[in-house]
């Protein structure tokens, strides 16, 4: 669906070098801190910024050959941009009808009613939650094959976030070929939705793992200095000094459970994995 090979973009104090692959039928998450390079990656995929190297292929086509017609297969949400705030939903409907040949007006209106979005109010006066829902609705209403969603859940309360994720699940259920690339800095959002996750830091991908594996095999070992000295470190990805000794991140939980029964082992949450990957020192 989407393939990025060594996408490069240099700014004064930031440089991006990112490779990732999105399979058909999959939801792939991109997590990272603010400024890690998520939005830059998304904008490069969408051709909004020029790149300094690398290849991007979307739906089997090089991005340079991607035409306006091809863009109909994409549904996009950008964190910092959307339809002009001066427009109303009732203005947007004819615009979308004339933009997308496959725009599903009845579905769109049905969803607008479901989420009680006002037809006759300027978007700039919408609440954050309403704006976010509208953006996602626009992206999923024209039978897109690939959704590219940059921080669609930013700033939302728990309920709005759940509703939004539910919309995305429904979108995926309708067609097995559909895929989503979604970014967030709230990992719990992605934990429940994504099949696999890429972690980006300082413009580089530092981890790629299936969500299931991440949740089942990754763990934090909490050891004191003595235990740390004796620890077999071949499956330790990162370790970090703590007041009680060390905390270590492993991707082979079972190995340590079996061989070091006395060590405190905590199931790794995605947030903890991120923190350790970024703050911890490499073994």
């Amino acid at each position, binding site marked *: 669906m989407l393939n990025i090979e060594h996408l490069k973009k240099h700014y004064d104090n930031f440089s991006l070098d990112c490779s990732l692959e999105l399979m058909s039928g999959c939801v792939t998450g991109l997590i990272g801190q603010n400024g890690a390079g998520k939005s830059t990656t998304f904008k490069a995929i969408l051709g909004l910024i020029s790149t300094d190297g690398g290849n991007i292929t979307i739906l089997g086509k090089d991005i340079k050959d991607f035409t306006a017609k091809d863009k109909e297969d994409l549904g996009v949400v950008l964190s910092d941009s959307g339809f*002009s705030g001066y427009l109303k939903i009732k203005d947007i409907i*004819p615009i979308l009808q004339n*933009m997308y040949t496959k725009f599903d007006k009845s579905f769109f209106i049905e969803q607008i009613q479901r989420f009680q979005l006002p037809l006759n109010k300027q978007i700039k006066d919408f609440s954050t939650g309403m704006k976010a829902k509208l953006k996602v609705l626009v992206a999923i209403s024209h039978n897109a094959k690939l959704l590219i969603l940059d921080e669609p859940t930013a700033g939302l309360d728990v309920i709005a976030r759940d509703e939004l994720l539910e919309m995305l699940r429904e979108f995926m259920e309708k067609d097995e070929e559909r895929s989503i690339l979604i970014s967030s800095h709230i990992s719990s959002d992605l934990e429940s939705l994504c099949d696999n996750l890429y972690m980006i830091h300082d413009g580089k991908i530092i981890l790629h793992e299936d969500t299931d594996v991440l949740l089942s095999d990754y763990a934090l070992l909490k050891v004191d200095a003595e235990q740390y000295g004796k620890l077999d470190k071949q499956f330790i990805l990162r370790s970090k000094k703590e007041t009680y000794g060390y905390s270590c991140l492993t991707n082979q939980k079972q190995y340590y459970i079996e061989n070091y029964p006395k060590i405190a082992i905590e199931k790794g949450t995605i947030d903890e994995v991120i923190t350790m990957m970024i703050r911890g020192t490499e073994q």
Partner: protein
Amino acid sequence: MKGLLVKDFKLMMLQKNFLLLILAIVIGMMVFTDDMAFPLGFLSFVVSLFTVSTISYDDFDNGNAFLFTLPITRNNYVIEKYSLGLLFGCIAWILATVLGIIATVLKGTLPITDLLLVSLIILPIMIIIQAIMLPFQLKFGGDKGRIAMIGAFGGLAIIALIIVKGANIIFDIDLVHILNTLPTVSMGLLVVIAVIVALLLLLISMKISLSIMNKKEF
């Protein structure tokens, strides 16, 4: 492309009250004064300005980034803006001319040929103004674009002044006098040439805008 036109039409409709007010002012001027050139030009220019203002609306809150994820290209966008300007500019110009004709016929102030001539002179000027405004607006966006535009028009006025004065001093030719005394027939020819030149300038301006837009990062 059609989607973009619909969007811009919706954006312009946001200011429909203001547009109606302008129309009322124009009709008022035609009724109460004998000067037809000003209301004619005024309506055409204000409507042109309205089409250009849709660029600022697109730009509002970084809206351009999202706009270019829709199934359009940057070239489509530029061509649409020029089409929109020409389309609405010409509609306004025709409307103003028709209103002018009605007013002159009812009041019997000017011969219709004179009015048509005035109206025909306004057409190329309107096109040239659009040709200047659009690239500036696309390059600098809303606020900076306005300042840059004022500068550009100031520069243009100075150049025109220099040409007229220069011709007067160096070649001892009074261009203004020549224009004023030109017989109607050659005046008509001059207007046709002016419209062609204006359209050529618009094309060049569009080329420039295309390269501006293709270099932009969102």
